[in-house]
C-alpha cells in the first residue's frame, strides 16, 4: 500500500489525499509533527527527502517527493480512465505542466501567507499577499474565459485534470493567510465545481459543497 508522509494541515499533502480519494486508491498516512516539532527537518526524514519537505510517497519502494510530481505519478499509474493526466497529448500535457507550475507559485505566496498568519513563519507578508492576488487575477481571468467557451476546468472542458487538484487547496485556504477571494467570482465558481467531483474529500478549513447535485 502507498505510504503518504503527511501533515493534516498541509494543502500540498491534502491534494494527494484528495486525488487518491477520488481515484479510490488506498493509502496509509504517516503523520509528521510538522508544527511545532519540525519533524520534516529531522535527521530520519531528511534521509527520505533531503529537501526536508512534505509530502513524500513511498509506493512499494518507489519514493517520490514534490506534490505536483506525485499527482502526475498517481494519475499515470492509478487512473484507468486516463483523463486526469492524458497520455500522448502534447498540448494538454503542456497546459497541465503550466498550471502545475502555477500551483507552485500559489504555494510560494498564498501558502506562505497562511504559514505566516497561522504558524508564525517569518515571511514578507505584504509581498506574499500581493503575489497571491496577482496570481488569483490571472486565474480568475483564465477561468472566466474558459467558462465562456464552455470549459469548466483549468485545462479541459469535459473532465478535470491534476492541474485543478494542484491549484485548488491553497486557493481554498487563502483566507487563512488574509487573502480575500471576493474579487474573484470565477475562482469561487470553479472551487464549487471542484467540490462536486465525485470522491471529493475535505481537510480542516475546506468545507464540502451541498451533497445534492443540481
Amino acid at each position, binding site marked *: 500500500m502507498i505510504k503518504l508522509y503527511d501533515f493534516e494541515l498541509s494543502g500540498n499533502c491534502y491534494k494527494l489525499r484528495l486525488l487518491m480519494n477520488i481515484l479510490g486508491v488506498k493509502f496509509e498516512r504517516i503523520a509528521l509533527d510538522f508544527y511545532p516539532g519540525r519533524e520534516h527537518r529531522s535527521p530520519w526524514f531528511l534521509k527520505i527527502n533531503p529537501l526536508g519537505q512534505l509530502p513524500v510517497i513511498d509506493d512499494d519502494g518507489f519514493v517520490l517527493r514534490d506534490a505536483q510530481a506525485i499527482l502526475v505519478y498517481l494519475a499515470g499509474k492509478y487512473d484507468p480512465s486516463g483523463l486526469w493526466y492524458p497520455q500522448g497529448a502534447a498540448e494538454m500535457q503542456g497546459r497541465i505542466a503550466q498550471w502545475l507550475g502555477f500551483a507552485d507559485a500559489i504555494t510560494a505566496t498564498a501558502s506562505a501567507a497562511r504559514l505566516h498568519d497561522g504558524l508564525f513563519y517569518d515571511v514578507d507578508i505584504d509581498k506574499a499577499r500581493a503575489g497571491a492576488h496577482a496570481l488569483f487575477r490571472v486565474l480568475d481571468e483564465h477561468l472566466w474565459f474558459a467558462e465562456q467557451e464552455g470549459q469548466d476546468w483549468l485545462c479541459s472542458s469535459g473532465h478535470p485534470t491534476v492541474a485543478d487538484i494542484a491549484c485548488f487547496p491553497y486557493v481554498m485556504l487563502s483566507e487563512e493567510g488574509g487573502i480575500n477571494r471576493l474579487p*474573484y*467570482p470565477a475562482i469561487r465558481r470553479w472551487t464549487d465545481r471542484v467540490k462536486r467531483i465525485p470522491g471529493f474529500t475535505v481537510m480542516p478549513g475546506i468545507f464540502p459543497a451541498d451533497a*445534492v447535485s443540481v
Partner: protein
Amino acid sequence: MENNKGWFPVARVEEVVPRHVVQAQLMGQEVAIWRDDQGQVNAWENRCPHRGVRLSIGINDGKELRCRYHGWHYASGSGQCTFIPAHPSQKPANVIKAKPYGVAERYGFVWVNLGEDADIAEVPALGLNAFTTLRSIYVAAPVAAVAGHLAEQGFAPAGDFILENGSGTTLLIQPMDSGQTIVHGLAAGEVDGAERLALLRRHNTSLTEVRDAAERAAA
C-alpha cells in the same frame, strides 16, 4: 441611510449559478447573492443573524440557504429562518430572518439596492435592447480614480455611476467601498461564437488597462 439607496449591478445574471452563493460588496456592505432552484434570486446581508458568520460560505440547497456554522435554514424570498438544528421541534421565531435587500435582474445583471424601500421601478433605464454583457473588472482603487481614467478613454457620465463612450459601450460602476470598485459593462448589439469571444477579449483588455492605470495612480 439615504447614502445607501440606489440600484447598483453586483454580478452578471449568468454568474449567479444554481447551488452557489456569490459574495459581493456594495458601499462597504457585504451581500450574499444566491438563486433558488425556481430561478428566484436573493440578495441578503452577508451575515447569519445567529452568530454573524458569512452566509456566502453557506449551502444553497436550492430552496433555502443554510448557514455553515450551526446549520440554521433561511427561506428564499423572505429570508425567514425555518429550522434550527439544535431545536428541531421548535418553530423559529418570526423575528429570526436573514436581511433581504432590494434585488432585480435587468440588462443581464443582478442589481441590488441597500435602501429600506427599494423600488424596482427605479432601476436605471439604459435604453438598450440588444447587448452583450462584458467581463466585470475589479479595481483596487476608488470610484473617482477609476472614473477619471475612464474619462481619458472617452467615457462620459450618462447618469449616476453610468458612463458611455459614444460608440455603444455602457459602463456601470459598483462602489465596493472607499477604495475598491467594480466596472461592469455592456456592448450594444448581440454577436455569437468567435466574434463574441473576440469582443469580450477586446473589452477585457482595454478595461484591464484602465484598471492598471487607476491602481498605479492609487498606490
